[in-house]
């Protein structure tokens, strides 16, 4: 009965209902876009870690994130390989360099130097050429999505990268960097050469895989004992470390969070105002219900149901608007992820905000004197 009454009350004033639903819809759409961008960026920041095999990452001391790797002694690779519980270990070189355009302009590049014998740090989505050709010194892979910044290029073209003339031996598609600086993939030696900051006796990361049946915790402990001046992370921990750094330690995540909160607040205020006005209009009815024996909990449930109906009605168009905007963002080459889980979380937040928005109305009906029905 309470559900029916709530639904009918909401539908009785369609204009007010539409205003509430619209407020929720736009708030949810904005939250979804923010969440989509946030998770897209977070995923982008760790895409090399996510796509590389291996259970353990060894990094320089206090490396805050994947992007800011620092040189470590290359001999640590041998230490890792000889550690009990470790099956294999590969190195990965990362750094920064510049591509010099023929007209003299420069474009900064993020270098990923990988071991061609493994898939650690190897490029994916290769649409032209062959990544194995990168074994030849002076050959690189560039991403087609970055042509706007790198200028038009084709397989076999030459470019000046890191003061060295290199040949484009593979072209990837859709590998966009978290920093928006284009990636260049190369062999370990070519990567050292074009960065110019990593010596032959240095590497940046050592990535290791566990032997079958080996304990991750035991291997981590053993590595930490053997490499006291380096940081040793489980893959998941390094992934979280990187995401946490960019999302929260830089304030970027807080920005997303605040914008989302603002959107939720605006939606909640709209719902709150319309619901309060509707509740005030229906006060004699609430008073009558109280006089007839309805409890405060009954009246609360009616108001909450009304808020949830308005919220649910706004969630459907809100999710659609959010999905369309996120698709538009992706079409522009920016990373944004929007899965059913995120939509469910955002809708849950929106509905929760609707319930909070109903608090004023709930208070109004709970404090209502039932004796008012005889004074109308």
């Amino acid at each position: 009965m309470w559900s029916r009454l709530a639904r009918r009350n909401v539908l009785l004033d369609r204009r007010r209902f539409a205003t509430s639903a619209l407020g929720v819809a736009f708030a949810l759409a904005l939250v979804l876009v923010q969440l989509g961008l946030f998770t897209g960026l977070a995923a982008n920041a760790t895409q090399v870690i996510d796509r590389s095999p291996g259970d353990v990452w060894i990094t320089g001391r206090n490396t805050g994130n994947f992007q800011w790797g620092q040189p470590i002694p290359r001999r640590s690779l041998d230490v890792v390989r000889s550690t009990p519980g470790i099956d294999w270990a590969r190195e990965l070189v990362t750094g920064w360099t510049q591509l010099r355009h023929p007209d003299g302009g420069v474009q900064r590049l993020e270098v990923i130097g990988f071991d061609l014998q493994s898939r650690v740090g190897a490029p994916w989505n290769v649409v032209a050429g062959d990544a194995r050709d990168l074994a030849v010194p002076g050959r690189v892979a560039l991403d087609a999505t970055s042509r706007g910044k790198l200028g038009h290029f084709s397989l076999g073209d030459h470019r000046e990268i890191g003061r060295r003339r290199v040949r484009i031996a593979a072209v990837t598609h859709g590998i966009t960097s978290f920093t928006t600086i284009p990636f260049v993939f190369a062999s370990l030696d070519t990567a050292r050469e074009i960065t110019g900051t990593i010596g032959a006796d240095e590497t940046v990361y050592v990535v290791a895989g566990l032997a079958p049946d080996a304990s991750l915790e035991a291997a981590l402990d053993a590595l930490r004992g053997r490499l006291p001046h380096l940081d040793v992370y489980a893959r998941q921990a390094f992934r979280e470390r990187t995401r946490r750094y960019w999302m929260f330690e830089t304030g970027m995540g807080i920005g997303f969070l605040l914008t989302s909160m603002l959107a939720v607040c605006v939606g909640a205020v709209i719902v709150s105002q319309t619901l309060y006005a509707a509740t005030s209009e229906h006060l004699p009815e609430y008073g009558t219900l109280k006089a007839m024996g309805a409890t405060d909990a009954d009246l609360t449930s009616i108001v909450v149901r009304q808020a949830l109906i308005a919220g649910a009605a706004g969630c459907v168009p809100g999710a659609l608007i959010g999905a369309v905007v996120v698709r538009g963002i992706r079409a522009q080459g920016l990373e944004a992820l929007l899965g059913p889980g995120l939509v469910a979380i955002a809708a849950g937040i929106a509905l929760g905000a609707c319930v909070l928005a109903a608090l004023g109305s709930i208070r109004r009906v709970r404090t209502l004197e039932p004796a008012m029905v005889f004074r109308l």
Partner: protein
Amino acid sequence: MTARAPTLSLTAVCRTFGTGARAVGAVRGVSLELHAGEAVCIMGPSGSGKSTLLSIMGGLLEPDRGEVAIAGRRLADLSQRARCELRRRQVGFVFQRFNLMGALSAAENVELGLHLAGVAAPEGRRRAAGVLERFGLGPRGGALPRDLSGGEQQRVALARALAPGPVLLLADEPTGNLDSANGRRVVELIRAHVRGTGAAAVVVTHDRRVSEAMDHCLWMEDGVLGGFEDRPGAAA
């Protein structure tokens, strides 16, 4: 009045609004016993305390002093929840302005009263339809209150109040917004219910014709109830 156990009992009930020099005694030392099958009306000028007394009788307002009991249960001994429960099952209210749920149909309004009294939905629907039929509103069950005439609305409100079978009916100016024909119809329905079920009824009214249809008539002025006028078989 008879010696039977009272359906409604008020003993030296007082209610004051405001404090100090601004204190107004809305109800002053009212005592009353109302037994099953009795219908009384309370008349009096505006501001005499009739509505306050009605609120106290229905457990909507607590008296400052005195005792109220419905069907032998002292309201002061009941928790808030138990009082709600008592009102749901034992007390029916009828208001001058009908106070129907505007978003619910006539039948659903009656069902609402039954729902509060704990009647399950299918049974509630069946009983609501039966009551509306009896009140001459069978074909109007699906209509919203705004599509009903004043007389029809008051009959729906009466059906809502009486469908759960309350032992006490409290009506505040039930004919105040009705023409004479509809007013007479409503009074007849109240009388029929009191006769048929043995319930008791208190009707606050300014309408002399309503008062003439009740068993007893009381006069209230300045918070004091008096002027008892017996009308044996008034509306028989």
